[in-house]
């Protein structure tokens, strides 16, 4: 089932709490083994609060939240542009929310944000979908 979305409507909220070992699994899946993501001691040594999530993981959640409006069809998402801002950490809930900016025929543009508490991880995310 595909949703009929009008300007100003919200996409279904996505809530995910990445567990302690998520950054390790994402590192394996993506090939990005930067130690700031998988080595807590190293991360603290370079001044981070702890090992942090991959920005592209958070972007992946933004893509997933948007694909949901096309019932997860991987063909629907045509473009996704994001800014990575705050640092995401494991073991804290991520909330992805989105508002339809325009809906023209089958072309939907969604403004999306991914946040952990008060920290925005992904800002100014614009997703363009064909639904």
């Amino acid at each position, binding site marked *: 089932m595909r949703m009929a979305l009008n300007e100003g409507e919200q996409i279904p909220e996505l809530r*995910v709490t990445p567990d302690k070992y*998520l950054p390790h*699994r*994402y590192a*394996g*899946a*993506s*090939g*990005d083994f930067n130690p700031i993501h998988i080595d807590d001691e190293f991360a603290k040594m370079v001044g981070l609060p702890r090992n942090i999530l991959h*920005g*592209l*993981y958070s*972007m*992946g*959640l933004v*893509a*997933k939240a948007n*694909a949901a409006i096309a019932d*997860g*069809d*991987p*063909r629907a*998402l*045509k*473009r*996704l*542009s*994001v*800014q*990575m801002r705050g640092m995401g950490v494991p073991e804290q809930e991520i909330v992805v929310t989105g508002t339809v900016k325009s809906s023209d025929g089958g072309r939907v543009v969604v403004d999306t944000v991914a946040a952990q508490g008060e920290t925005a991880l992904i800002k100014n995310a614009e997703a363009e979908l064909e639904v």
Partner: protein
Amino acid sequence: MPLKTDAVWEGMAGSTYQVGREKIKEYANALGIDNPVHHDVEAARAAGFRDVVAPPMFAVVYSSPAMAPAILDPEVELNFAAMVHGGQEFAWDEPACSGDEITTSTRCLSIEEKDGKGFYVFETNSVNQDGAQVARGTWTLIVRGV
């Protein structure tokens, strides 16, 4: 040392990535994406794909190997240790399916200094074995303290 902004990086022949079912499944599992088209070949074929299909952001998996030489090229002089990933865009065309061979080329679009930071913008262009456009990526890397 002033930021080197005149590097023109037109890339190399490109790196080729062979897409496989298990890798797609591993990526989908990490993101908690349970649509069977990413896990099961029959479900993927029933939905009109030639094989298990990758989620769009799998573009990271097949295109980032082509970014490494650009970032590390001495000509670009990018201070990798002070780098953060500031922005990313992907635009998708043909879906990436298991069995595809995707070749990605990279070029440096711009290097600018702003507010004491270096902004490096690279573009990756990924095409499959049939020459069809799969994804185009724009990568904004920010280097602090230049």
